[in-house]
């Protein structure tokens, strides 16, 4: 339950950050992606602020033996740059550019009751389920593997 409480507060902080940064406004997002037109570079500062924070802070967090309310850190194990990674990212980018929503802002928009976010969200969940269905049928091993980083 402590982990759920921590996740609730982290989710809240994440959502406040997204709304403050206006990542939740699809027109701002499309303006940011419109490099060859009406380019609005403001959202680049969101990525700069977020990655500069994680690049410094993750370093110190991952020096710990374990997280505060869980047994171990759960980090992605895959290292190889493969076709699913590139194809998946390319498909995601098309959807992002068409609607101006990526998963976080779509959830925040739905929370605010914005109609287009409320419609986008179930379609997004269906897309994730569709991929898992296809993957399970065709290779049966596409579930993400995770590595457990035990105390070192």
């Amino acid at each position: 339950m402590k982990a759920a409480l921590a996740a609730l507060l982290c989710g809240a902080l994440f959502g406040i950050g997204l709304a403050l940064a206006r990542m939740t406004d699809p027109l701002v997002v499309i303006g940011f992606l419109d490099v060859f037109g009406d380019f609005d570079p403001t959202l680049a500062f969101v990525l700069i602020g977020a990655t500069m924070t994680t690049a410094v802070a993750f370093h110190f967090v991952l020096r710990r033996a374990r997280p505060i309310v869980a047994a171990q850190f759960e980090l992605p194990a895959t290292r190889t740059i493969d076709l699913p990674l590139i194809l998946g990212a390319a498909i995601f980018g098309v959807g992002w550019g068409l609607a101006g929503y990526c998963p976080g802002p779509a959830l925040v928009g739905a929370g605010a009751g914005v109609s287009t976010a409320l419609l986008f969200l179930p379609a997004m969940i269906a897309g994730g389920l569709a991929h898992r269905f296809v993957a399970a049928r065709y290779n049966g091993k596409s579930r993400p593997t995770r590595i457990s980083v035990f105390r070192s």
Partner: protein
Amino acid sequence: MSSWFVALLGGVLIGLSATALLLFTGRIAGVSGIVNGLTRRSSGADWAWRAAFVAGLAGAGGATMHLLHQATASPARLPVLLLAGVLVGFGTSLGSGCTSGHGVCGLGRFSRRSLVAVLTFMASAIVTVLLTHHLFGT
């Protein structure tokens, strides 16, 4: 405050949230992965932290949008909007992450996979906007 400063501040809050989630729960704050895990059969504890993160995100984020009088809808027409949703869900599941998992967290861990993913989805999104807004019109 200038808009770029507010954007930078929002980004720092997002980075602090991802840091706190890793510090407390040992998890990566990737929204697509967290949501996908909710539709997977798993233990109650695993489901609980994911549901709690999503509730906090949608609740506090939605409330902030109201406070800031933000209510902008997507300009995409309904069929395009639904297609976009399916593509985002499918692509982030296939590619193991979205803007938060690969962008905020992956780049913070200096992951080469995430760097490739970010460059790929940025490029494909930019090309998509170029095609839909300039070559074919909206």
